């Protein structure tokens, strides 16, 4: 119980100590915010330091070439760029859809409070599984599982570009599938937080007007939380771009790009993981060039995403 005397002490103009502490805290917060930028800058610098010589040598041919041959000094990453974008696209499509669905189930009263908590932990378990284990699971379980379906689709609908090759093992489909699973916890968790942050009175109002649960979801919850959900998707996409170990084992390491889901391919991160340990100086420089390209792709996609976000949420201000 706060006494009258304490009331007077609490509600008073800021003391000198408080003002100074505020300034210091503000400075510290700015500093740490800047530190993150500095970290990125340091990493970019380190990458550029090695990539520089390779960039001068290979210039733009790097982007259109498809040969990666350290012995001959030929380096090209077109299949990897295409592969990264292609697998991440599928992972985002499927992972985004499933992730938001899971987030809805975890936040819209489908389950009891306890059920939601248990499910939340179950989903986060997906994040706890090591990357290498996903790769192994992909080889031992997923690929054999997919093989009959892939064979059937290839036989009957082979003309369709998505099914135009045989599934011989690792490839776009297993890689995208595992990527989906790996970004699922991120998307689910962040989307769930976004949905939970929607003021309950909005949903309550809608229910009071007689809306069904799914009507509330589609017309109130999703639009209001759209900013956060979009953020979840962007985080998930970033994670998909950077996934290393599992894709090194499942992408197939082929220097080709094909629209077929069943063909082997490669991604930038997998290329790095596969070649870095054994790389000599020239190859390391080329790999750093590729790493730089990946960072630029991530940046570009994020900028595009923000632009889309700004356009889309322009009319939603003031809801809180």
């Amino acid at each position: 119980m706060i006494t009258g005397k304490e009331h007077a002490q609490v509600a008073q103009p800021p003391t000198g100590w408080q003002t100074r502490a505020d300034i210091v805290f503000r400075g510290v917060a700015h500093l740490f915010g800047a530190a993150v930028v500095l970290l990125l800058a340091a990493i970019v610098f380190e990458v550029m330091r090695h990539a520089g010589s390779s960039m001068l040598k290979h210039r733009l041919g790097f982007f259109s070439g498809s040969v990666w041959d350290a012995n001959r000094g030929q380096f090209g990453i077109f299949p990897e760029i295409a592969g990264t974008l292609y697998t991440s696209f599928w992972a985002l499509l499927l992972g985004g859809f499933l992730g938001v669905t899971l987030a809805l189930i975890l936040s819209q009263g489908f389950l009891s409070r306890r059920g939601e908590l248990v499910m939340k932990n179950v989903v986060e378990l997906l994040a706890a599984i090591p990357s290498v284990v996903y790769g192994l699971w992909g080889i031992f379980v997923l690929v054999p599982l997919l093989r009959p379906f892939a064979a059937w689709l290839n036989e009957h609908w082979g003309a369709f570009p998505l099914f135009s090759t045989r599934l011989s093992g690792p490839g776009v489909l297993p890689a995208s599938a595992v990527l989906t699973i790996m970004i699922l916890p991120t998307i689910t968790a962040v989307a769930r937080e976004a949905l939970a942050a929607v003021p309950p009175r909005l949903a309550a109002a809608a229910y009071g007007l007689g809306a069904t649960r799914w009507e509330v979801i589609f017309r109130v919850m999703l639009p209001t939380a759209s900013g956060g959900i979009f953020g979840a998707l962007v985080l998930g996409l970033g994670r998909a771009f950077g996934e290393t170990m599992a894709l090194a084992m499942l992408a197939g390491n082929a220097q080709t790009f094909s629209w077929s889901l069943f063909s082997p391919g490669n991604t930038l991160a997998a290329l790095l993981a596969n070649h870095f340990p054994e790389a000599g100086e020239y190859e390391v420089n080329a790999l750093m060039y590729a790493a730089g390209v990946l960072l630029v792709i991530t940046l570009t996609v994020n900028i595009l995403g923000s632009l889309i976000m700004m356009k889309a949420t322009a009319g939603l201000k003031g809801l809180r």
Partner: protein
Amino acid sequence: MATATEPRGPAGLQLSLVNTRTLLDRVLTVLAIGFAAFALFPLFSVLYMLIVRGGHLLSPMLFTELTPGAGMEGGGIGNAVLGTLIVVVLASVFSLPLGILAAIYLAEYAGESRLGTVVRFAGKVLTGMPSILAGVFAYAVIVVTTRSFSAFAGGVAMAILMVPTIMLTGEQALRAVPEKMRLAALGMGASRMETTLRVVLPTALPGILTGVMLALARAMGETAPLLFTALFSDYWFDGKLGAPIASLSVLIYNFSGSPFAHLSELAWAASLVLVVLVLALNVLAQVIIRRPKEF
């Protein structure tokens, strides 16, 4: 379904499957649960695979014995479990302050400012960074300068992977705290710092924790960062943070591909232990920080 004796309410409030809206609602619910089950099937498949292949090695000996050599019987993963915990503590010491304070900056001070946008973008680009790059960077900055592989470098590499997720999810969690709570605290005479630390941060803690746990779970399962920085050690941690240290992720990387059955079984057991460890950390943290009641 209304019988003759039940009072009939206004048409829109009746839960009748004949009504299209209700039918749609039910169908969507079934579909959603179906998709969710589909999404979770891989989890159970992976866990099943781990249990079948490595479950039989779960015993206290697993945690008290050192990693065996090829062709040897017995042995365990004790040094790796301890090593992982130590590296996690190191990484948290580096990444939690940085990530949370940066999140506070973004949520409380940055608004729509130029620097804020840049910081946010930096965070998003960093989430997309391949884990191997974090390892290579930490190698170049720390291992090369100290001329030694070390647990310290491993902690730094892991922290680099964790910071962006902690910062971005932390920002969202902080922003979700209703403005009125901040205003109430300020109105009572609290300074900006007191408001942030005593009111906003505790309220946002469950959300921040989600981000921390996500970051931690991912970092613990990544091999590449530790492979280039902390290497591995077949011995117990001897207190030297400047020397290589064992870890579960590198152990799994080493043993999972081994042609010797005992070693690959240890890898599966280690994977199981890692998953359970992350789950335990998760549950522990959630128990400590209970979600406050909604307003």
